[in-house]
């Protein structure tokens, strides 16, 4: 029971895509990571040479490939949402599956990257840079996993035809969470892998 009618998804009134609760959650996650990003950036400023040196051991190619994967996954999610909005949820389901595939590939690439790093003696205690690198990417990794669980739920919903122009809330909320995961990586990659 709400006191005002919600505008339909394809109208032009200002409208937040997704549930208010999920956006609160998104802001909280963004805040948490922002604090971590800032902690990294300012710690680096006090140990520039050490960080530059340790960063050279990072697999920047893996990081870049992962960026491409997440961005592509996000684009796939948008296509799925557009399909549902047009009343074609079942036909749009494969786009969501493709997004899931991108995300899973991200995880695989990351695990290969971690495996090589661990072999080289990188650990939470090997250096301050390594601690940040592992912490930031691992926390993000966990969020990718959660994002994939959410996308899987959305995929099942699309296949069952549960989403449509009058039932977009769940789909948009889940999609927004996935885009947040992507957004975080868009900062993480340049910050940890590139800037020197």
């Amino acid at each position, binding site marked *: *029971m709400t006191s005002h009618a919600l505008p339909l998804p394809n109208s032009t009134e200002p409208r937040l895509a997704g*549930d*208010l*609760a999920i956006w*609160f*959650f998104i802001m*909280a*996650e963004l*805040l*948490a990571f922002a*604090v*971590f990003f800032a*902690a990294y950036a300012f710690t680096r400023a006090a140990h520039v040479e050490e960080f530059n040196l340790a960063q050279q051991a990072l697999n920047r190619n893996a990081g870049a490939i992962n960026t491409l994967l997440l961005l592509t996954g996000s684009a796939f999610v948008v296509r799925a949402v557009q399909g549902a909005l047009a009343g074609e949820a079942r036909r749009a389901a494969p786009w969501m599956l493709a997004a899931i595939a991108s995300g899973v590939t991200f995880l695989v690439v990351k695990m290969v990257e971690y495996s090589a790093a661990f072999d080289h003696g990188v650990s*939470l*205690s090997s250096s301050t840079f390594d*601690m*940040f690198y592992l*912490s930031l990417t691992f926390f993000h990794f966990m969020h990718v996993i959660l994002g994939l669980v959410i996308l899987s739920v959305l995929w099942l919903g699309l296949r069952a035809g549960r989403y449509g122009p009058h039932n977009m809330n769940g789909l948009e909320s889940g999609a927004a969470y996935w885009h947040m995961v992507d957004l975080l990586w868009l900062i993480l990659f340049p910050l940890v892998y590139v800037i020197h």
Partner: protein
Amino acid sequence: MQYKSQAVAKPYFIAAIGLFIGQIVFGLIMGLQYVIGDFLFPEIPFNVARMVHTNLLIVWLLFGFMGAAYYMVPEESETELYSPKLAIALFWIFLTAGALTVLGYLFVPYATLAQMTGNDLLATMGREFLEQPLPTKLGIVVVALAFLFNITMTVLKGRKTAISTVLLLGLWGLAIFFLFSFYNPHNLVKDKYYWWWVVHLWVEGVWELILGALLAFVLIKVTGVDREVIEKWLYVIITLTLITGIIGTGHHYYWIGAPEYWQWWGSIFSALEPIPFFAMTVFAFNMVNRRRREHPNKAAVLWALGTGVMAFLGAGVWGFLHTLAPVNYYTHGSQITAAHGHMAFYGAYVMVVLCIISYAMPILRGRAANSNKAQVCEMWSFWLMTVAMVFITLFLTAAGILQVWLQRVSDTPMSFMATQDQVALFYWMREWAGVMFFVGLIVYVISFFIKGETKAATQ
């Protein structure tokens, strides 16, 4: 009340208040011992008074949570409690065990108590807040499991709501994490590491779920705001709690010998722990602002709003003040810690239990709310206790800042005892504030006995 079996909550609430009084008496004893060192020595040494004060706090809050659950769950589930008889039996078992334990602390030398109660079989005694003899700890587990069985069966029987789900999660979590009190590693680092799995994951983890559920329940009843709205807020709040609080445990791992990365993880995540408390405050005020009815129980509304504010200040702000590792390096184990501890426990847990009691007790006694006279008296007690606690906290904060400066930061650090001499004035002031708190508590008890015109219960 809507369901007859909700009546079992009454003895739990009464016991809670009784034990609360005991807790404060021993608090006052210790406050005086801070400045008159041999007060009541050797009959009640400081360490014994401290065990009684802290253990009574936890036990009375547990009575409060249980009473709250027995009141809330039948109403939320829309069915009678699974076994009211079991609830009453458990009440007497828990009360007796608690009383015996406290008497044991007071009348038996601790080492003898340990010997008498089989501590050599499985050593669980001797740790702060977990001083209970092994039989008591086992008794707590049995009582908790039986209580959880009773409540869970009730929920399974009937309607499942977000509030009852979150409450169950919190209560089950409480029981499960208590099991870590049986794990007492020989290695001192591990000992401390896992001790926090009881303490931190209780008060900065699953207890916050209980807090949220109780607050949400009272707000639905007194404001009439849509259940959907309130439950959505509850989910956001507990998510924020768990995201920040679980890894936030690391703020207890800075100096105990754990790896250095905990100084980063603990600082970053625990710095965000005030956020759920901020959300709770906004939530409470927002719901009251959007209320659809004027509930006759004004006192309960006051407690609800007060809980939000004081929990945010005590747990959130005062917690934040000393949570970052570079700060904590200097303030660890100082009176800053005591300041935070007192306001946090009062603001978050004491107040929410008093809030649910304030809401439920009149109904259990046959009316929607107490008379105006009684409510005014109760509201006086709210202000007396809350303002007193603010002063206690401010005085301890001042003592702490001076202590940290003199003992740790200064170029010519003083010894512990010499420093204590210098901050004694703040301890005296704290004790007077403590007396004011006790007066507030007496006024609170009196409010239960004030008569006058009451409105009939609407259900």
